[in-house]
């Protein structure tokens, strides 16, 4: 989780990722950010987030994203 | 309750919209009251209160060259010219069809020049010929036969759609004649007293094919048929005007057609001397149209021909008709006087003709 938060903070240091759950809905993250995040995650966690999982529900909060990573690494 | 209220609001909205659109339409349609008056011709016929012995149909070669007032004054013949600017043969046909809704004349005179056009020609002439006709199947069919590529029926039904952009160039006349109009013709005759002698005409073009188009001829056939059905004598004429050129090949076809259909065809170009036309004084635009003097000469000649060859009653002792026609004669003389006055004062007509200044 800590690594993930670091990735996110690196992109948008001004956001409080513990509470924010509207990262997509409020357009804090744009498509470039998302691609950067996925690329970083694949580096850090060795997990590939497929395109079909790029939906607001999975990216709206750090928590949701973390859960997605866990689920995907579980499936692998 | 609420539903009812909504219904009332919608109904009021629709009525308000329709009325305002109608008013706007009246405002923007061209009034044809001065300058180019040809667009007002078709409507004037409906003001007539009495029937006519003779109905003329055709293009400018009828409405500028024949004077029904002269025919009345000289022979007691009642006549009306349902002509129009570049009236095409199908438009003539439908004008006739339209006329028959109101009366059945003894004689119909058709000027054959327009047979040279086999296809729709120009939107503005279409509009001038058709727009002020009353709505009937004849008008509908006239539109259908006349429309050029860009025109649409809906814009004839709702002229507002066609003329909306005139909202930016309205004149005082558009308000003045929004609901009424003033007469511009004398039983369809367009009066001009000015003189411009006949000039030189160019060599006529050599045509690839001199045969009249099938479409045009089909309307002549229909016209012949319609007259036969109604017991009307149809007379085909070519007015004594040398330009646009009337080819001998065309003349032959008309002679043949008249023979085949048992009709009279008179080419008046050949009769100019007999009529007494002097092309140096009897035309106002260098020979394209006759002026009043020419028109009166031609009408006298043609009236005599009619009286001699057809069984037409002299209506001059009919008191009712005399009263109606006296008014027409007064209007005729007034206009004549005014035109002569303008000619003397300004050296040209200023409130008549295409260049007339609009209010």
């Amino acid at each position: 989780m800590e690594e993930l938060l670091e990735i996110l903070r690196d992109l948008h240091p001004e956001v409080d990722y513990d509470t924010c759950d509207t990262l997509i809905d409020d357009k804090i993250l744009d498509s470039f950010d998302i691609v950067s995040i996925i690329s970083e995650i694949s580096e850090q966690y060795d997990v590939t987030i497929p395109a079909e999982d790029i939906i607001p529900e999975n990216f709206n909060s750090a928590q949701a994203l973390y859960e997605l990573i866990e689920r995907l690494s579980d499936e692998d | 309750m609420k539903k009812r209220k909504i219904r009332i609001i919608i109904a009021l909205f629709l009525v308000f919209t329709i009325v305002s659109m109608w008013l706007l339409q009246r405002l923007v349609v061209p009034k044809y009251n001065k300058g180019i008056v040809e667009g007002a011709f078709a409507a004037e016929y409906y003001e007539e209160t009495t029937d006519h012995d003779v109905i003329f149909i055709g293009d400018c070669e009828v409405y500028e060259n024949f004077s029904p007032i002269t025919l009345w004054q000289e022979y007691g013949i009642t006549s009306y010219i349902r002509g129009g600017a570049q009236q095409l043969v199908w438009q003539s046909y439908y004008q006739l069809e339209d006329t028959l809704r109101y009366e059945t004349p003894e004689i119909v005179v058709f000027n054959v020049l327009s047979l040279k056009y086999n296809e729709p020609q120009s939107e503005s002439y279409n509009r001038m010929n058709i727009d002020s006709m009353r709505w009937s199947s004849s008008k509908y069919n006239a539109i259908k036969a006349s429309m050029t590529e860009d025109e649409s029926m809906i814009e004839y039904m709702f002229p507002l759609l066609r003329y909306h952009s005139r909202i930016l160039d309205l004149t005082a006349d558009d308000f003045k004649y929004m609901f009424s109009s003033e007469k511009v013709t004398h039983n369809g005759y367009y009066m001009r007293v000015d003189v411009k002698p006949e000039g030189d005409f160019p060599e006529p073009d050599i045509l690839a094919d001199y045969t009249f188009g099938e479409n045009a001829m089909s309307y002549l056939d229909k016209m012949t048929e319609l007259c036969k059905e109604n017991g009307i004598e149809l007379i085909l004429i070519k007015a004594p005007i040398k330009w646009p050129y009337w080819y001998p090949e065309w003349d032959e076809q008309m002679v043949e057609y008249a023979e085949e259909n048992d009709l009279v065809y008179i080419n008046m170009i050949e009769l100019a001397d007999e009529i007494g036309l002097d092309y140096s004084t009897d035309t106002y635009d260098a020979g394209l149209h006759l002026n009043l003097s020419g028109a009166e000469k031609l009408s006298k000649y043609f009236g005599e021909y009619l009286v001699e060859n057809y069984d037409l009653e002299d209506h001059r002792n009919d008191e009712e008709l005399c009263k109606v026609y006296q008014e027409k004669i007064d209007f005729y003389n007034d206009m004549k006087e005014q035109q002569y006055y303008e000619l003397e004062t300004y050296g040209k007509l200023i409130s008549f003709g295409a260049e007339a200044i609009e209010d």
Partner: protein
Amino acid sequence: MLFTSYSFIAFISLLFLLYYIIPKKGQWPLLLFASYLFYFLCDWRYLIFITVTSVSTYLFGIAIDKVNVRQDEYIKEHKKELSKEDKKIYKAGMKKKRFRLILMCLVLNIGILAVIKYTNFTINNINGIMHAFGSDNTIGFVDIIIPMGISFYTFQSMGYIIDVYRGTYKPERNIFKFALFVSFFPQLVQGPISRFNDLSKTLYAEHKFDIKVFTFGVQRILWGFFKKLVIADRIVVAINILKDNPEQYGGAYVFVLMMFYAFQLYADFTGGIDITIGVAEAMGITVAENFNRPFFSKNIKEYWNRWHITMGTWFTDYIFYPISVCKPMLKLSKASRKHLGEVIGKRVPVYLSAFVVWFTTGLWHGASWNFIVWGLMNFVVIMISQELKPLYVRFHNRFNVDGKRWYDGFQVIRTVLLMSAIRMFDVYRDVPLTFKMVWNMVTDFRISSLWSSTMLNLGLDIADYIILFAGLIILFTVSMLQRRKAVRERLWDKPAVLNCFVTWLLLISIVLFGAYSIGYDSAQFIYNQF
């Protein structure tokens, strides 16, 4: 059938009437019938193409779903016997199967689109290359009909099949319902590109006549006609004169053209979309919004989130993401990080995918280099502003301008000018000319040249300019009002008389000041050839 034709108005009027008087069950079948009739009235041959796309996409959708269902059943049945490893192998096999199916579907449909739209473009380029190598051979152009809206409905269908493949939603089982989704006629002319899960919510539902819904729909249609007829079609005359005579109109006139084209495209395109959405809305159907006051964007990226939204999200979801997160791309990114360093390696996926997206966006807009260059210009500008972002942030912090109204205004105007300048590529005849003219604008900008009578030689007279100006003021005012609440909602809350009056005023101004009928070129919607 153009939106601004009498036949279209007659068509929708009749449809609205029928839609609400027939039994509610018949509503969506009526729409399907109307859509096919609409297409038929445009050109009956179009029907062949749209039917092929509808049927093939429908069948592939079902087939892909079958594989999914079989997979789930198999795994459920053999839950106990299967090891994790077996399951993975089995799943991979099924995925391959699905992939083959979707590939066939994509190749077929994108293939049709490509052949139709790009054959002559390809031939032209081959000829150019052969010519450059001294060959005198030329390949003749092929006469191909381009079905109206093929780019839109093909993209819409491909979005659907990809969603089904991803398992976002189940495929539609009723082929007629699906055919309606593909052919829904208000969208055929120029989009928007709807998503199935979105449009299907209201498309097949039964709708009772509701005066508010209907009024809103009609008002939206009128608003579209106003934009299109009063503004776009009036200004287009001047645009054509300016762009067709570049020798004569350089310098400041290039700027005039640039602004005219910006207004024209905006009024025409958003007006068309207003008509589309309004027609659907009048029947209770919600079509996705395609614009969100784009000319108020503060930067180009924001602009593309607010202009032609459904196309933008389509490219993001179905091209940008799949390319940027696919395994080879991630591998490439890893490799470049290793060899070229963190800074570049991190950027590889974004840059490459964005390049592809903008190239295809350009190509999708039209088969010409003008559009490709236009797309790539967007790419360049977006990337530059992306790289300059830290700089901006520093600047904003230093001078404390962020959020200030005048600075917002500055950003908005800057974005409009930038976008308008890039858009010049789809105005002039070819790419070199565009560069030349834009350069000419910058180097030879003599504002005084505008104060001559030349402005009145562009096919517009004083009255036209006044109408245009008034129209743009109204457009701007409405946009400002929209920021808080939809204008129609506000009107609805006011007394009915006022609402009626405003509607009447709108109608009358369209009828009187619209550039239609004889004397005006009924310009086709700029977007329907795409």
